């Protein structure tokens, strides 16, 4: 993705239609994660490694198609084994709240849990 000097327009805010919509992105994440993980068991590091990577790439590519050009997309996927341990995840951001946004999706089955979080920052 190249630098921002040569642009076709000089807008500093996304138009209403271009805005990053967390609900829509949640649906996208759900459609990627659920088919992959719904029947899976946590079977050791190497198998799951491939899943986290695949899911992260798929979500990123789907969002790239949806929000071409104007947004930088960052996706993080965490998959963990359920063993009754306590776990908690949180995030904080420092950005322009008019243009930037975040979407997340949690998934759980009997043996594992999966958290997908996607940040989008607008490219001025």
């Amino acid at each position, binding site marked *: *993705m*190249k*630098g921002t000097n040569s642009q076709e327009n000089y807008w500093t805010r996304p138009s209403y239609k271009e805005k990053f919509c967390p609900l829509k992105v949640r649906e996208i994440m759900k459609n990627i994660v659920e088919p992959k993980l719904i029947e899976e068991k*946590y079977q*050791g*590091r190497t198998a*799951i*490694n491939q899943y*986290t*990577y695949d899911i*992260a*790439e798929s*979500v*990123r590519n789907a*969002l*790239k198609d949806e929000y071409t050009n104007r947004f*930088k*997309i*960052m*996706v*993080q*996927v*965490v*998959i*963990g*084994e*359920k*063993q*009754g*341990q*306590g*776990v*908690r*995840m*949180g*995030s*904080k*951001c*420092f*950005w*322009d709240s008019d243009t*930037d946004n*975040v979407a997340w999706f949690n998934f759980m089955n009997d043996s594992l849990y999966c958290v997908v*979080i996607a*940040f989008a*920052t*607008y*490219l*001025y």
Partner: protein
Amino acid sequence: MADEGQAPDDLTFTHQELDEKATEAIEAVLASKIYDEKEVSRWINEICERIIKSLYDTRKPFKYMVTCLIMQKTEAGLLSSGACMFEGGTDMMQQFLWPKEKAKDQANKTMHAVVTIFCARF
């Protein structure tokens, strides 16, 4: 070439720099604590806040996103990966695990922390 009040020339973060910020923040909050369900959200809040503050203090033209995961130490496995679409030379995504491998003796025996820092230039 950097005057007073102008952005520094090196417009990116090194792995080392982010590692220091992350470790410092986590150590300050979790150093000798025991995993406590009621306190975890407050710890996560504080860790993220400290990291963002130390990133902001560098005055570089970046937007920051920090995620922090705290997990009780058991035999359970955990994997985290990320995929990003941003500018290659300047933007960063780094993940840090705490306690580090070599510091096993003194470090916390009851929990793990994983911190991910995203920096996007604007």
